[in-house]
């Protein structure tokens, strides 16, 4: 193993982030491509089918022209899994991700969306106070770092919902809230996409979990069988609503429903919904302690 210095490793993280941000915007993962193709073949509603065919054409055009799949370059969100023996402190990892985001925006160039919430003044480089946002997970007995970049467009992010249900309402109320949220959102979040649901914890944790849920590949199942059954139920019920592609009617309202849960308080029953549009962009870098990097579109 080669010996690498902390500045060199931080530069590696920065380069990886700069690459991931642009790459994820252009080259969507295979699980999503498969899900969109299957949906297009199954769809029986003529408008819905036309829309799904256009989406698939668009993915192919983005490949051919090496262009962005969607113009909304989003807010860059990163999911960092840090091994306890990875030889770079998370403070430096954060700095690398931030600088990589900035560089990608200015060098490509990418549209910058980041503004001050009150003055609406643009920063111009897709970074800002507490932006990009990073989800952290720390892994014992490991010396690696996984960084997943998930640029999230605003059309779908605007369709985020939280409700503090009461325990007596049970899982029935959770399902009803998800259904009402997705029907109410209609075509605004660019369906068919991935519905992320966070249940349990506190209000902030529920939304955090919903956001983790949308970053999972289509076809993955929660390891808890109770939660997996809820995912399957929601998937079927959501597709019975007929909202369809772009909210214009059809069989395909969602490609997948993902649920993440945490334990909660005896008097709490929180549910959060975060919608991920069909252009579910994500890309991952696996970074080893020696600074070697493996890029991964599928994680």
């Amino acid at each position, binding site marked *: 193993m080669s010996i690498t210095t902390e500045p060199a490793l931080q530069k590696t993280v920065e380069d990886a982030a700069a690459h991931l941000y642009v790459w994820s915007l252009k080259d969507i993962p295979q699980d999503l491509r498969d899900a969109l193709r299957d949906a297009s073949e199954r769809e029986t509603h003529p408008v819905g089918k036309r829309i799904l065919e256009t989406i698939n054409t668009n993915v192919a055009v983005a490949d051919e022209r090496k262009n962005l799949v969607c113009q909304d370059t989003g807010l860059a969100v990163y999911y960092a899994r840090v091994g306890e023996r990875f030889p770079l402190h998370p403070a430096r990892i954060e700095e690398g991700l931030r600088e990589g985001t900035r560089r990608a925006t200015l060098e490509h160039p990418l549209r910058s969306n980041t503004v001050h919430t009150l003055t609406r003044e643009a920063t111009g480089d897709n970074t800002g106070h507490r932006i990009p946002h990073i989800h952290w997970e720390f892994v014992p007995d490991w010396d690696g770092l996984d960084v997943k970049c998930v640029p999230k467009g605003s059309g779908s992010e605007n369709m985020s919902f939280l409700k503090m249900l009461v325990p007596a309402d049970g899982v029935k109320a959770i399902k009803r809230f998800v259904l009402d949220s997705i029907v109410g959102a209609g075509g605004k979040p660019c369906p068919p996409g991935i519905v992320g649901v966070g249940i349990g914890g506190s209000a902030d944790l529920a939304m955090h979990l919903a956001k983790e849920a949308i970053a999972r590949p289509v076809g993955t199942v929660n390891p808890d069988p109770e939660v997996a059954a809820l995912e399957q139920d929601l998937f079927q019920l959501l597709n019975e609503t007929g909202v369809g592609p772009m*909210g214009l009617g059809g069989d395909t309202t969602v490609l997948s429903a993902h649920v993440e849960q945490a334990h909660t308080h005896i008097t709490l029953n929180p549910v959060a919904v975060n919608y991920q549009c069909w252009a579910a962009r994500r890309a991952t870098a696996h970074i080893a302690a020696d600074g070697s990097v493996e890029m991964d579109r599928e994680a």
Partner: protein
Amino acid sequence: MAHHEIEFPTVEEAVRELRAGDTVTIQGHIIGIRDATQIRIFDRGQEPPMSLSGAALLHTAPNVRKLADGRYEPMCIGTTTSARMSRFTEALIRDHQVRAIIGKGGLLAEALEPLHEHGGVYFAIVGGAAALETTQIEEIEQVEWEDLMPECLWKFRVRDFGPLIVGMDTHGESLYENVQAEARRRLDESIYEKL
């Protein structure tokens, strides 16, 4: 479900023929507009520096590159969610004779009345399909209010722009409202019972 090919700018009669569910391809010109552009026109009372008469407007904030001669080259042009800008519909059609608004997700139901009254339609584009949309834009011919970048007023010359679906027509019909009503009926009549 008829298909129409329309050259924009166009006249009121042309859009009054369209029915919700029809598909449309646009030739000619469309004008890009967004939240900040319309806030300037209607809330700050500034006259737009290009004519909107007969126009098809596109809810967009494009990714562009500025060339040495001051012109802009399209990099990735896509469409944003329209509902946020619903309140501008009446003034756009009544005062500026806009004939079509292109966006995704639909305008709020309150826009149906001014679309009917003053003669305008809403075209649904496939949201997120920006790579394809960019290939249908031949040139950015004019840019005004560059200080609002990327929410300027953009004049695009387009070819075979679409597919677009008539989401809301001049006859009071909205595909979005129909789909919502049907979804709520399904929830009430069968889905809630399964929870």
